[in-house]
């Protein structure tokens, strides 16, 4: 059996070249592959294109969390439906990088999902109903099909996907937990190389075939999150403590319905 297990996050990202296109989930603290992001920051890879569901400011200390935003100084392009948190001033924290030349491509979250699917399925493009009549039309081909307008959207085919998983067997068969799932299965399918950081590695046969979400063929590299890694309950506790110091983000992430 091919060994997909890497001993460290640094080894798992060691071959990522400058200019790589990387899809990485970020849905608040829990559903983020913090350790792979941190390793890529340590490596210093440049001219990255980051595809992510949610690009919010690095409001946590890096000792406890690493969101995609820590890669900002290494980025050439950002592709995301959520840039910033509106109440904190949307996009504000990326403006400095945009002025220095970073490109930002925004789109609806469902368009992101559909474009990743298109990448995985080898499609040349899709006609998407989202964004018609909005500023997202700019530079897009518009086409009327059966009386309705659509925008042409290109497929997304990342070079790498960084995935935060729950449990994986040694063949790479992967399950998530709760909202950890989200964009990650389609990112894993669309990417050329999928790297998973995971809470548990189990033996082949320990995951019921009916319950596999991402079949092992889509998983190329596996790294176990160590007890002192990011994304563990202890680090999470520290993050919560930090959040209680930041009123608006705290309200956003949990707390009273406003």
């Amino acid at each position, binding site marked *: 059996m091919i060994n997909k297990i890497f001993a460290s996050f640094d080894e798992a990202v060691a071959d990522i070249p400058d200019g790589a296109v990387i899809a990485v989930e970020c849905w*608040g603290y829990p559903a983020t592959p913090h350790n792979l992001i941190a390793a890529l920051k340590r490596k210093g890879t440049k001219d990255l294109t980051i595809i992510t569901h949610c690009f919010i400011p690095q409001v946590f200390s890096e000792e406890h969390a690493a969101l995609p935003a820590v890669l900002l100084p290494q980025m050439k392009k950002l592709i995301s439906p959520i840039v910033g948190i509106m109440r904190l001033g949307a996009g504000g924290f990326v403006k400095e990088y945009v002025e220095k030349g970073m490109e930002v491509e925004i789109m609806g979250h469902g368009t992101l999902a559909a474009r990743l699917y298109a990448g995985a399925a080898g499609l040349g493009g899709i006609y998407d109903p989202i964004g018609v*009549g909005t500023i997202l039309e700019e530079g897009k081909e518009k086409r009327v099909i059966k009386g309705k307008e659509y925008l042409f959207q290109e497929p997304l085919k990342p070079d790498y996907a960084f995935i935060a998983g729950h449990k994986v067997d040694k063949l790479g068969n992967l399950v998530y*937990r*709760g909202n950890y799932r*989200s964009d990650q299965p389609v990112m894993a399918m669309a990417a050329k190389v999928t790297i998973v950081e995971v809470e548990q590695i189990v033996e082949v046969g320990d995951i019921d075939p009916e319950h596999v979400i991402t079949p092992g063929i889509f998983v190329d590299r596996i790294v176990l999150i160590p007890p002192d890694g990011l994304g563990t309950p202890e680090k999470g506790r520290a993050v919560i403590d930090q959040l209680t110091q930041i009123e608006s983000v705290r309200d956003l992430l949990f707390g009273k319905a406003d």
Partner: protein
Amino acid sequence: MKQRLDRDTMGMRAAKELKDGDCVNLGFGIPTLCALYVPDGVRFETEAGLLGYGRLVMADEIDQADWHYIDASGRFCTPAPGMAIFDVVTSFAMIRSGRLISIMGGFQVSERGDLANWNTGGDALGGTIGGAMDLAVGSRMVIITMEHTTKEGKPRIVKKCTYPLTAKESVDLIVTDLAVIEVTPGGLLLKEVAPGWTADEIQGLTEAELIISPDLKEVEL
């Protein structure tokens, strides 16, 4: 007596549109409050991959929270019996195939039902889209809850949106702190007014022209 409805009451009024069996995606802000007032059998969806989750985790419960469940606003929520978990491909098929009801906040709604609720800046960095465009275009019914006027007293219900659009001709119903207005093919139909307010007064705070319903009544909860 000429009070405006408070946010809870607006949430309550919007929730009244829902019935047993409906699945609803609740956006930031006032829509979140609807959750407290929905009838039995309504389930909540988050585009990040849950249908039928339970209630939100409150700040004082955070120590016991299971961090694996997050609602559409990024808040921790609880699992519930009958919940389903799925990826975004399934999630946006759900949203775009017209099986969901969406209740969202709004900055502006036009007389044709155009919606602006993602961007106040004018360029792509002026806002965050998330699932809003998909929800506006794809949902079976789109209900917008918002204050009738801006803090400066300017109308939010306008002839033509000045903020960047979320989607064209997508809103079905507007619930404000002053009125309930249905978007019909003929125009905006004023159906309910807040207690003590007249149709003329509402029109005075609305840029778009309102059609007064022959059945005009006070907001019903």
